[in-house]
Structures are given as structure tokens and as C-alpha cells.
């Protein structure tokens, strides 16, 4: 969908996903690393347990469909080359601290003067301007400042985050969307623009309007563990956790009725539950005792079943219940496999094949998806610098000067 669009991608880990999305959508993403490689972005764990930046699984997972070059922006020659690369680009994607590129003479104002059609996407923790623009943050601080941590975790312990950086995963598609929107606008206006993404602000969408609801009735919810809005959302099955809810109004009731019918077949539905008046059921009106009674009955039933047994019946009986899958279970999930979500990439130099989630969207205009594996360090220097008329001798010279 974005064929022919050249994206110069300077981003570090928080921007990996944004660039990958654009590449998977067909853009020509050129990933720029310092000559020594992105040491943090290429950290372990490693393929084959060999500590080698080329084997970083994080890197391999999140940099598909990009080509890779090296360039030292700290050198004058590097900055000159950057200017020439930027002049050929439609989009610049970067995660530098506000002011850092300006300090090198490579700021937005400078580049736009030379190339008014350039779309510049800046992905930073708090945005490019404002009182916290200079604050530093990776995922943990972002989920804290963005409001999600305060609501995540058990009430008797500290707030928690996910094991993987979900704040980057929220910001990645937001940045990619901002870039696509700016490209659309450019088709009509002829001009590029600055797309300023705040990762903190992206986090607030995960609260699904909780701040607005608080502005209406100021009561802080706090952390409620496996519960949501007063009722349980995550339940213990025989072999792990499942998601199932008592709230949601009319849309949820058929699922509750079907669950109780199944329990009755197995003689695990108490009489009061079988006789419950579902027509007038409203989760907002349940007393604490009623909630405890309902949760007790469902908990007792779920505890006798494995997650697989529960999900099979959920599918057959149209019950809104799902297993809390781990990553190996996801790889084997039949629905995801039937849609061809996973694609295998070859890593012959390591004798390895790895399954990756492919780009998921199915278009009537043909396949959208991963087009190449993540680049090795400087893998495409010859191709990209060749466009600037730099030949093999020139590349050797640049390498000897530490520019690439």
C-alpha cells in the first residue's frame, strides 16, 4: 500500500515496530545504525544462545522488511551523507531526544527548508515540547506516567507492567498511522509536515476513557487484580487462567445463560443459578453478596476443567470465555494458523528457521506482509550509498574513517 515511499528510519527500540509496520505495508524502509550497531536494540536473548548482535531475537523480530545501513551522525562527513539520504526520502522516522538532532544541525526546520515534501515523524516519551519534553523514559516509566500502571496489578502489591514493552507497541502503530495520514495529506497539499508522537499520550488510550469517567464522578478505581469494575475478569481453570466476564449488558447475557446451561448438564449449577432471571440481570445492580455467590459458582465449575476443555465448549456454545494464552499456545492456535498468520523466515547462516507473526490485514488488492528478514549490520551499505554515487572504493574509505 505504501510502495515507492522511502522511509529513513533512525529509530531505536521504541520505534522498531513503527518502521516494521511501514515496511510490511510496502514502504522502502532504510534503517540507519551507528557503525558499531544499535547495541541496546540488538541485545539478547540470542538465536542459538551465542552472544552476537546479529543473532538478537528482539532485533530479528522487530526489524523485518527493512534494509540496513550504518552511518556515524557524529562525524561531519556522516552529517553530509545524512543530508543527501534525507533529500531522497519521503519520511524520516526518529526517536532521538528532543533537540538532539537539532544540535547536530539536522533539525526539522533545516531539513524541511531543503525538502518541503518531507514528512518527519518524531516519536518521543512525552512529545517534542512542553515541561516534560526533556524527561527520559523507557517502558516502565511510560506505563506509570501514562496511567496504566495505577490500574494494573494486585491491590496488596506494587503496580505492574507487562514483561514486554507494551507502551512501544501502542506508540508504534500510532506513529505509522500518523505517517500514513501525513502522506495522504501531502498528496493533496504538496507539503510534508512534522508528526509529533507522545508515547505517554498514546498510553492514555489503554485506559478506555477512565480519565473522562473520573471527570464525571471523581472516584479513583485503583488496582483490582483479576477484577474489572467490581466483577472478576480472569478465573482459574484446572491448568491456568481464563478470561470470562459478568459485565457488559445485553450483549453478554446469552453467554452467561449458555454457561449456566452447560453447568446444569454437568450438575454443577446450583438451583438459584438455574432459576436466575436473566431477562432482568444487570451487573450494575449486583450486591457484593450476589457477586460473591455468582463468582463462587462459576469459579467452582471452571476449576474442574482445563483451559482447552473450556475453550472448546466456549466455541461450541458461543460462550465469551477464552484462555490466557502463552506464546507457544498462540503459535499453535488453530484459528490463527488457518488464516496464515505465521510465516517462516530462513536464517541460513545460523542454520535456523523462525516463525514470525506476519502482517495480519487481508486486502482485496493482494498480500500485505513481511517482505524480507531484518538486516545485518550495514548489509545494504553498497546498495544505498551506491544511489549517492559512492562506489566500493568510496565505501572502503568511509569505513576506514569510521563514518560507516
Amino acid at each position, binding site marked *: *500500500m505504501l510502495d515507492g515511499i522511502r522511509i529513513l528510519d533512525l529509530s531505536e527500540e521504541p520505534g522498531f515496530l513503527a518502521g516494521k509496520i511501514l515496511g510490511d505495508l510496502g514502504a522502502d524502509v532504510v534503517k540507519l545504525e551507528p557503525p558499531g550497531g544499535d547495541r541496546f536494540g540488538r541485545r539478547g536473548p540470542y*538465536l542459538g544462545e551465542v552472544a552476537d548482535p546479529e543473532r538478537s531475537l528482539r532485533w530479528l*523480530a*522487530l526489524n523485518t522488511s527493512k534494509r540496513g545501513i550504518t552511518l556515524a551522525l557524529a562525524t561531519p562527513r556522516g552529517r553530509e551523507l545524512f543530508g543527501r539520504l534525507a533529500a531522497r526520502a519521503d519520511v524520516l522516522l526518529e526517536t532521538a531526544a528532543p533537540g538532539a538532532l537539532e544540535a547536530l544541525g539536522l533539525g526539522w526546520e533545516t531539513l524541511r527548508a531543503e525538502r518541503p515534501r518531507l514528512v518527519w515523524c518524531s516519536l518521543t516519551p512525552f*512529545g517534542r515540547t512542553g515541561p*516534560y*519534553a526533556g*524527561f*527520559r523514559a523507557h517502558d516502565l516509566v*511510560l506505563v506509570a*506516567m501514562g*496511567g*496504566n500502571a495505577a*490500574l494494573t*496489578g494486585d491491590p496488596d*502489591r*506494587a503496580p*505492574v507492567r507487562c*514483561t*514486554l514493552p507494551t507502551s512501544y*507497541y501502542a506508540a508504534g502503530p500510532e506513529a505509522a*498511522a*500518523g505517517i*500514513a*495520514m501525513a502522506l*495522504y*495529506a501531502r498528496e493533496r*497539499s504538496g507539503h510534508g*509536515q512534522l508528526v*509529533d*508522537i*507522545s*508515547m505517554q499520550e*498514546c498510553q492514555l488510550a489503554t485506559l*478506555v476513557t477512565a480519565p473522562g469517567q473520573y471527570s464525571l464522578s471523581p472516584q*479513583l478505581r485503583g488496582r483490582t*487484580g*483479576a477484577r474489572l469494575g467490581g466483577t472478576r*475478569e*480472569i478465573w482459574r481453570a484446572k491448568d491456568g*487462567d481464563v*478470561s470470562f*466476564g459478568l459485565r*457488559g449488558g445485553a450483549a453478554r447475557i446469552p453467554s452467561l445463560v449458555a454457561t449456566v446451561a452447560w453447568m446444569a448438564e454437568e450438575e454443577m449449577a446450583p438451583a438459584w443459578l438455574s432459576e436466575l432471571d436473566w431477562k432482568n440481570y444487570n451487573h*450494575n*445492580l449486583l450486591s457484593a453478596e450476589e457477586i460473591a455467590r455468582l463468582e463462587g459458582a462459576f469459579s467452582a465449575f471452571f476449576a474442574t476443567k482445563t483451559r482447552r476443555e473450556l475453550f472448546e465448549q466456549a*466455541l461450541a456454545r*458461543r460462550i465469551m470465555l*477464552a*484462555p490466557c*494464552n*502463552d506464546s507457544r499456545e*498462540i*503459535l499453535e492456535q488453530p*484459528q490463527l494458523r488457518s488464516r496464515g498468520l505465521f510465516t517462516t523466515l530462513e536464517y541460513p547462516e545460523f542454520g535456523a528457521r*523462525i516463525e514470525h507473526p506476519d502482517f*495480519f*490485514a*487481508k*486486502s482485496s488488492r493482494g498480500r500485505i506482509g513481511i517482505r524480507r528478514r531484518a538486516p545485518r549490520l550495514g548489509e545494504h551499505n553498497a546498495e544505498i550509498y551506491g544511489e549517492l554515487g559512492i562506489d566500493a572504493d568510496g565505501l572502503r574509505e568511509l569505513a576506514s574513517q569510521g563514518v560507516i
Partner: protein
Amino acid sequence: MSVPEGLFQGLKILELGAGAAGPVATRYFADQGATVVRVESGVRPDFLRLLHFRPGDPHGLNGGPMFVLMNPNKLSVAVNLSKPEGIEVALRLVGWADVVSENFSPRAMAKWGLEYQRLRELKPGLIMVSSCLFGQTGPQRMYPGFGGQGSAIAGFNHLAGWPDREAVGPSGTITDSLSPRYVALLIAAALFHRERTGEGQYIDVSQIETGVYSLSEAIVRASARGEVMTRRGNHAEDAAPHAIYPCAGPDRWIAIAVFSDEEWRRLCEALGAPGLARDPRFARAADRLVHEEALDAALVERTRALEPDALMHRLQAAGVEAGVVQTCADLLQDPQLAHRGHFVRLRHRHLGDLRFEHYGICFSESPRRLETPGPDLGEHNLRVLGSVGYDELEIRSLVEAGVLA
């Protein structure tokens, strides 16, 4: 060149569906000048209109705060799609639209005769996106579920919480906030493609798959080394301290993340804790990871009496990553969010003053706008149907026949 009317001035989007995942996606366009018309019905109302409903609530379908907050800048027409005349209205609106975005379960649109094959004949160049939990194809496509189930299947729930406890899941049914960003991206990319080629397209999105794709690192680690990532509290593989520490006040906390030995020295200095800096157990990053429990215990002693906001400023000034665990009350007063204009106060005719929110993008050439709260059901029947050729008499008879309901 400034485009004060918005990037999407003149764009027309027809939205069918309910809940969060569908309606959030079109917000991006509505806030940048597109006209977004929701086709909905009181016969089978959007469940968000009733999520907080109690019998006796005076505003019924129009007083649901979550619906109102999630659907600003949109127009609502009430159309009963179980009546043939209702389908006629929907088809007329498709003729008006550039984009159709829907998030019903897979068979619904075809059942009404509103599938892409038919709609594109009516409207060449149409862009249509369907986004349901599991996608339009496959053996489990009819599985019913909310975002909570989507987050569980996609793997988010398993990754949040403490290793010795049940999963808690990141708050907020994460696929409901994640999948709309991808749908907005795909609509924008399809518009870009149409602008260049004149071609429309149909796109099928599974909300769960947007989650699995985002968690690519977990899948690749599982495939490459058989690793099953799980919840680990706030532990990180490559940083210590990396935790959330208690502060002075009820349920007040601060997040602190230290990635290098230099940052560790700065943290000790900013906390006035030279003893910690000298402690050999904590000297190097690898040592701190080994002794993480003792490290966290030592830091808790130094944070628990401190005011979190002042501590954050002190640590950030020293070059240490730190951030207050902000509550909704904190967010509404956050000076950085205020600087970006994140919250906008709008008056809703039934609920009064409410704070509406923007998404995370600021465009330099086009400020985002929030002008009207989520609409009442059918609030714009006259205006919208009038703009596609129905006269007042026809509209009145459609109301009387229960079609506009």
C-alpha cells in the same frame, strides 16, 4: 501551508458497529475534519450506551458516559437494519461515503446485503474495513467475545502480573485500544493508495491478530528458542533497579529504571545515599540483577517517605528515569498533557461537563479538534438523510414505520 480545517476535510466515513474497537478507529479522522456518520439502532443498541445503565436512569441510551466519551465529533443516524427500508437507507449512505468501517461479527454485513462485493458496485473506489475479534475467515471466526477475551487469546494477559499469582492483564482490554490504531493506519494507507491510483479496497482485520503481531518478540523467542515468556512483576532482563517503589501518601508510587552504572551512581547521589553507591553488591549492572531483592528493599526504605512528584523531578534532573504512577486525577492535572492539549472540556447536554481526550499524534500543519460530545441516538437523522436526498416527509414516514429507530 496551514490546513486549519483538518487533514481529512471533506472525507466521508460511514461507521457501523459497536463497542470500543470499531468506533475508536474513526476518531482519528473525525478529529481532523472528516464527517463520520455512525449507523446504529435502538433496536439493538451499542452495548456501550448501556454499560453503566441502571433502571430509572433518565437519559437511557443517551446517558452512557463511555459511549459519549468515545464518540465525539461524530454524527448518529438511527437505522433499523432488520427492515428492508433500513437497508435502503444504509445503501444510500454507502453511496455518499468514501470509507465504510464496520466491526460486527463476520456474517452480519452479508446478512443485510451490505458485503463489500455489493457495496463497491454501488460506489467504485470504496474503501471498506472490517474488524472483528478473529477476522472474517477461519473455523473460529464466529467465536463471540469482548476485548477482554481478545487480550487473553493474543497473549497480553499472560504477561502482566506476578509470577506467583494469577494473570491480571494490563488494565483496559488491550486489543480494544491497540486494534483501532491499526485500523486507522490501514484506512489512511488505503486512502493514500486511492489518492495515487483511484483504486479502493476491502481490508479484513482480526483484532486478536493485531495483538499477536505487536507481540512479535514473544512469538519469535518462542519459535527460535522454545522460550515461554511470562509475567515477572516489574523485573527487566537488562536493568536494575527497574521497579515501582512506594512513596509518601495513600497508594502513591514511583517508577524508577536504571540501565547503566552511571545512572546508578546518579540515582544514589540524588537520593543522598552514598552507602548504596559503595555497596559492592550493587556496583555493576550484573551484580544489581543478582541482588535485585536486596536492592529493591534498600530503595523502598529511601523512597517511602518522599513525595512522588518532587522525587520524580529530582531524579529526572539528575538524569535518572523516574515517573510517578499517575492516577486519573493526576493525569487530568499533568502539565505535559495540558501542554499538548490532551484533555478538552465539552458540555454534554445530559451529563454536563466532561473531559474528552485526544490520541497521541500532533500534526504541525493541522491542529486536532474536539467540538461535539458523542451524539444522542439518531440525533442527526434529519441532517444526514437530508444530505443524501431524503425530504422531510420521507424522513417522517421512515420514523413512523420504525425504520429510523
